[in-house]
């Protein structure tokens, strides 16, 4: 899953990683790719984790986790940080999700009557990046497939997602269906749990 995302990154590109699963990507990017990781709380150039000696209470990512930065990093305020995204200067944005649909819409900020986390920066992050990737487990804990014809939960953004990466494969929303781009080793289309017509074969 993580490797599929890393494959989509050009050398030297800028990348925003959402809270949750996407943060796993950070740890696996080969340093020689020269990727610049942006975190919307106001930093460009996130590196690994700090040591207990170097840790700083004022150096965190958007998930509120302690981080370190690489040479050439910069800090800025939140208006500048979201302007970078909105203005199209961040090449790739990877977000987690609860549902994603064939129209390229994403739902990841609330389940009516059950859970409200708030949209945080997600509603901004889905607009502007040249490549918006949603990274999620293919099935929910209750076994429901998260890739659907139209999201049933409140949207984070409408028609904004370019690629969907799950533990079972890589998919492109095409409007009325998902194009299968890649399947995980050993996975067949019948295991994807998606109705006929929602899937365009490899």
């Amino acid at each position, binding site marked *: 899953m993580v490797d599929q995302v890393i494959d989509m990154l050009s050398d030297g590109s800028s990348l925003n990683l959402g809270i949750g699963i996407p943060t796993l990507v950070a740890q696996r990017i080969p340093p020689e790719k020269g990727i610049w990781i942006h975190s919307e709380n106001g930093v460009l150039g996130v590196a690994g984790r700090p040591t207990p000696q170097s840790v700083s209470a004022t150096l965190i990512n958007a998930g509120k*986790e302690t981080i370190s930065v690489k040479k050439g990093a910069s800090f800025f305020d939140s*208006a500048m940080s979201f302007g970078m995204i909105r203005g199209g200067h961040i090449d790739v944005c990877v977000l987690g999700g609860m549902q994603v649909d064939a129209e390229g819409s994403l739902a990841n900020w609330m389940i009516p009557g059950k859970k409200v986390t708030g*949209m945080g920066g997600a509603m901004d992050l889905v607009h502007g990046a040249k490549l918006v990737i949603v990274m999620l487990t293919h099935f929910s804990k209750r076994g429901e497939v998260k890739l659907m014809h139209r999201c049933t939960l409140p949207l984070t953004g409408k028609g904004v997602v370019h690629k969907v990466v799950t533990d079972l494969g890589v998919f492109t929303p095409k409007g009325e269906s998902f194009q299968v781009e890649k399947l995980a080793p050993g996975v067949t289309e019948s295991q994807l749990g998606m109705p006929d017509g929602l899937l365009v074969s490899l």
Partner: protein
Amino acid sequence: MTSKVFKDAKAALFDMRDGVSVMSGGFGLCGIPENSILEIRRLGIKNLHAISNNIGNSGRGLAWLLKEKQISQATCSYVGGNPDLEEQMLANEIEVTLVPQGTFSERIRAAGMGIRGFYTPAGSGTEIAEGKESRTFDVPCLLELPLTADFAIIKAQKGDPYGNLWFKETARNFSPLMAMAAKVTIVEVEELVELGEILPENVHLPGVFVQRIYQGNDYENTIEIPIFEDEK
């Protein structure tokens, strides 16, 4: 000439009253104005409208005021990680307005910079668009209006007597924007430095936006989620 320098939080917050709106800087617990928040708790000010990205987190920061039921209205972008806020939301004890974080920052900047409204794609086609004017440029956008407040309480690493500020690492976040947007901006600093000590080019927020400044103390600077290299 009247000085902007106050002795402490108690002196600087002398005119804060029930029912005011207060912007509070910080992302999670990073860069929050601890001294001013604790003083508001001590003063027992009620019925606050808090404008802050998280309204505290992990039981700290503005959550100190949530616990005392001092906040009746909140404007923020994220509730996750703040059980005190979630609980009061579900119990309908607090009125929460959720704003996408980029729109939140830009609305605060707009208030500070005298911009009367702007168009952004964030939120279009979602529930957030309800009741808002929308308009299509290259993409569908929403008209968003400035967000201001009676007070801003913010924290900086360094500040001088005129109010020129310098922020450390990611502690900057919403703080300089809120300082520009509020009617009265009250700053607490880790280091109150001499005029001229911050190089003029490196001033993050010019002092003209600051009304009061004081040297803070006893900072907790809590780390919410410490993760270290060794633990990878």
